[in-house]
Structures are given as C-alpha cells and as structure tokens.
C-alpha cells in the first residue's frame, strides 16, 4: 500500500468519525428538548415565609486605614496684611450656667404622676422603672457614668464569696438609690439556685447600704431621673 493510499484512508476515516460524533450530539440534544419539564405542581401548596430574623454576624473590626489621597488644592487668595489693624471682636460668650441645681425642681420635673392618683384611678403613665419591680435598671443608658461606676465598684468591694464554693450562678440584686445617695432598700430580684451565692450578694448589698447610710454620696442631678428606678446588678463571681 502506497503512502498516498494510506493518506486517503486516514482522511476518509477522520471524516466518518466526525460525522458520527455530530449526529450523536444532535440526537442527544433533540431528546433533551423533548423530555418533560418539571412542573411547579409540587410547590403550589407551599407558602413563602419571610424570614427576617437571621442572626447578623458582627461586623469585622479592622484597624482604620490611612487614606492616601492628594490634599485638596489650596487656591491662592489675596491677603491684605495690615499690621496696625485691630483684631476682630470675639463673639460674646454665652453666660455661664448657674452651678446651683435645685434638686426639688428636678424631682418635680420628673415627678411620678401616680402619686396623685385617687384609689382605683388608672394610671396613664407607662409602668417603667417603678420600685414595685415592674422594671429594672438602666444599664445601657448610663454605661460609663462615673458615679454609677463608683457605686458598682463599692458594691463589688463589699462582695465576698468563699473560694471553696462553686461559682456557678448569676443572681440579680437591686438597690433603691435615693437622690441624697442613701439606699433605703435592697432586694434580691433573681435567685441563682446557689444559696450561699445569693446570700453573699444580699450581704454585699446590705454592706453597701450601711456604708451609704454612714457616708451618703448625693446622686448627680443628671442621674436623678434615672435613679427613680431600681438599679439592678447581675452578679457574676
């Protein structure tokens, strides 16, 4: 068999194989078009529920990145410099506030209207922060306040709990702080299930109460409205 014959055979063979592949692809494609498409019948009965309570992952805290930006162009201005010119008059400063604060006035402004209610009369005020225990504390509102920070530190200094006992449990203790800084009452609002731990918190609050009785530290005026509520502490060993 000559080389020419071999070339002819290989060319014909390649053409045949290509044709077979093309036909097979066309046939498979047409079969796919003919296949029944999935219907939505199975999902027709389902309702779509809006799920809007996904837990939001906290944003990643990253160090601020320095902005490498060209500074804004400073347009040259004509400066007239008169060495003899008088300095411009300063605007009048606002008058200094009177440092004296009338506590009674502040209290009146935040007076509990329920005190005026007749027996049986229904209050129109929301039951917020009452000493009847309907609401506790105000941690988020006063976070970082130095007076309350010192009060918490005083409570923690008075809190002693035996080393050999379990530290499991988080009782909640509340104090009633008067504007003059005394603590007329304390209450263990939530027990921890650990009797000694609860007892230690009650003792700490009573100790704080005694200290405040002996040396009351008046509540700053800005906190007085807030301290008309129980101040509650979730105590963790």
């Amino acid at each position, binding site marked *: 068999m000559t080389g020419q014959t071999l070339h002819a055979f290989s060319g014909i063979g390649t053409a045949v194989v290509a044709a077979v592949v093309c036909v097979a692809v066309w046939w498979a494609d047409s079969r796919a078009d003919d296949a029944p498409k999935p219907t939505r019948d199975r999902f027709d*009965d389902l*309702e779509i*529920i809006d799920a809007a*309570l996904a837990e939001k992952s906290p944003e990643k805290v990253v160090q601020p990145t320095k902005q490498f930006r060209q500074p804004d162009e400073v347009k040259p201005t004509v400066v007239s410099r008169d060495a003899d010119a008088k300095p411009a008059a300063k605007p009048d400063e606002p008058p200094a506030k009177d440092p004296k604060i009338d506590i009674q006035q502040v209290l009146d402004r935040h007076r509990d209207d329920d005190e005026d209610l007749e027996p049986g009369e229904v209050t129109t005020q929301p039951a917020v922060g009452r000493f009847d225990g309907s*609401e*506790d*504390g*105000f*941690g*988020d*509102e006063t976070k970082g306040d130095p007076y*309350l920070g010192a009060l*918490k530190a005083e*409570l*923690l*200094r008075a*809190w*002693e*709990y*035996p*080393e*050999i*006992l379990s*530290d499991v449990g988080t009782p*909640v203790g509340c104090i009633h702080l008067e504007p003059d800084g005394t603590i007329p009452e304390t209450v263990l609002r939530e027990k921890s299930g650990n*009797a*000694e731990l609860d*007892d*230690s918190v009650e*003792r*700490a609050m009573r100790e704080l109460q005694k200290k405040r009785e002996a040396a009351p530290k008046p509540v700053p005026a800005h906190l007085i409205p807030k301290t008309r509520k129980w*101040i*509650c*502490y*979730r*105590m*963790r*060993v």
Partner: protein
Amino acid sequence: MLPNASLTSSIRDGLRRVLLTALLVGVILPSVAIADDGVIIDAAGAKRGRYPIATPIAVDSDATAAAEVAAIATFDLGVAGYFKVLDPKSFLADLGSEKLGLDPQKWKDVGAYGVVKYRVVVTGGNVELEARLYEVSKGTTPVLTKTYRGNRADLRDLVHAWCNEVVFYYTKENSFFGSKLAYVTKGKGKSSVMVVDFDGNSAYSVTRNSSTNVLPAWSPTGGQIAFTSYMRNNPDLYTVGAGGGRPKKVASYKGMNTGASWSPDGSKIAVTLSKDGNPEIYVINASDGSVVTRITNNKAIDTSPAWSPDGGSIAFVSDREGGPQIFVVPAGGGAAKRVSKNGSYNTTPAWSPAKGARILAYTTRDGGTYDIVTLDLASGAMVRVTQNEGSNEEPSWSPNGRAIAFARAGGGGSGVYIAPADGIGKAVKVVSGSVTGVDWGPAPKP
C-alpha cells in the same frame, strides 16, 4: 386519591402551624427576654474569701474535753487556709436545746455557712467523739457525720482527723492536720533538731549530742530526718529516725555537707558540698552518700538546694550575679536560670507541693528585715506572705501547699509561725523561742 390529598394537606397545614409556633417561641420570645435582661448592669468579680464556719463548744458532753475539742477544731480550721472561724460571742443559737442538731436560721443570721457540732463522752481512759458538719443552706440534716473512739490522750489526734474530713468534704484534698514540723532550737553551746506537731504540741528532740545540729529535712515518707551536725568537728550530713535514735552518717566529705533536700522518691539527696574548695550543689545517694551528679560548677557560692515535687528541677541560691539570688536547674544538671528578680537578697527557696504548681517560697530582704514571698514560676505572680512583723526566714510549705511555716525573730515574739500561703490573714505562732531551719513534714497517713 382525593381523601388522601386532603389528609396530606391537613397534615401539612398542621406542620406549618407547628413550625411557625416554634419560630415564634424559639426566636421572637427570647429576643424580648434579652431586651429585658439587657437593662441590668453586669457586675463581676467577687472577692474570693474564706468560708464562714462556726465551731461552737459541745454541750451534753464532758466539759473539759468539749472545751479542748472546740479549741483544737477552731485552731485547725482557722489555719487551714479555707475558713473564717466565727467568734462564739456572736452566736445566737440556743446550744443547749440544739445539742447536736441545728436551727439553720439562727446560724444564717450570724453569717455562718457551715457549722460543726460535737458530742464528747469520756468513759474512764476512753473517749468517744461524735462530730457533725452542717451546711446552713441545706437545713437540719448534717452533710457529714463521723464517730471516733480512742484513748482520752488521743483526743487531739481524733479532732485533727475530723478536721481533715471537713477540709476534704469541701476541697476533695487532704489537709495538714496531724503533720509535724522539724526545726532547730539554740541552747548554750549547742543547737538541737526538734520535732513538733504542726500546732505546736508534743515537741521532742531527735538529736541528743551536745554539738551544733542544723538544717533538718524530712524524707518524703516522714520516716527520717536528714540534718547537718558538727559532732565530728566537720559539718557532716546525717539521717535520723523521725522519732529520734542513733544518727546515721550519710556524707562526710571535706568541708561543707549541708542543706539536704530529698528527691521525691527518697533515694537521693541534693546537698551543698565544698569538697573541691567551693560550695557547689551535688546529688548524692541517700543510702551511702556517694556522689551521683554534680549539678553546679561555678566560681560563685551555690547553696540551699530544693528539689521540686515533680523531681525535674532543683532550685538553689547563688551569688554568681552579685547578691544571693534564686536559680533553677534541671535535676540532672544543665544550665541554671535565675528566677528571683526582685530585690538584691533572696535565699532559702522551697517548692510548693501543690499538684501542678511551680511555685517557690523564699526569703527576701526588704530594707532591714527579711520577709517570706512566693513566686509562681509560670505566671511570675508574687505573693507577700509576711510584712512588717519582725524578720521572717526559711519558709517551708505545708503538705497540701496551703500554708507556710517559717522562723520569725522579733515582731510578736520569736518562734515558728505558720501563715496562709495566699498571704491573706495573719501568721500564727506555734513554737516560741529562738529557732531556725523550719521544715514541714509530709501529711500524716490516714
């Protein structure tokens, strides 16, 4: 098919309701609760203090024995390092009617969390001690009850045994009641190695020679005491039975044979030898004194070895960097590392036997006086055990690592004192007199 489809649909509806309810209960309600909780201030960090416990005197008992029991229990629990023993003057309970029982409220009112009650009956030369431990919060049922019987003379040991049970109940660890201390007392022209109960009772001498005997060291089992004696005109190393007897010479190399510290298995002793002219730390066999390893090789003075409880390290004192400081070296020898960083004078290291701890107690000079401090080698945290109370030296740990015994001169009277290792509370004197070389023995066998 239709009824089945209807049934499937109703099941599906039911499931849907259940899912919605679960969503409401599981997601929405907790978020409301969290909002409520969120307005309470978090306060964390109680002072971890002592457990308030009452040890009232027993009624319905032999009066003398009852007083003795109350005194021993008060002392034991007071120095244990865990308890605050309440003053009997504050008690409100009617002990006469309570007897071995308990009125929890009366004890709660005085701040007691635990109450120990006794009944002691003396019959001839025998004694029976019935003891109960109550946790006030758990009401009228005792949490621990034991009855001990023995000779009247053994009452002290029975109370120690009971107090060990009380500590074990709370901590699951053995305490040191019933253990012994060794120390050196100075006499005219001589000094003797003494042994005494940890509470200062029943002291006796284990050396009978008229020479100078110093630096006692208990073997790990408590059966022997190693000490250095000049009885042959050279500071040689001897061992003697804990009850006394004829000493056995262990090492008599030329020069110093001092400062013994036993290996945890009792087979070897780390010691300071100056046989080659300069004091160095060596490990020798406890049986015959033959040298196993030379640990240090330095021009400076190396002394006061202390073998760690895990057997892996030896702490010692060296002046290789100027003043005396504490160094730690592998027990097989190697590079020494300085661990004491404070002050210019730190001596007499002792390892805490507490499990897993790598804490050293040592003497440090502060101004003109000496005080005991502890140093946690892992964290670097230091605790001052004594301050402004005389000159305090040569600390030795209790077998459980909760207390430290040491020798004090001045400040409330010279003697052997024991103090809580956490530095909280005052030291208690257990032996009076001019003493040195305090070493606390192992825990008593139960």
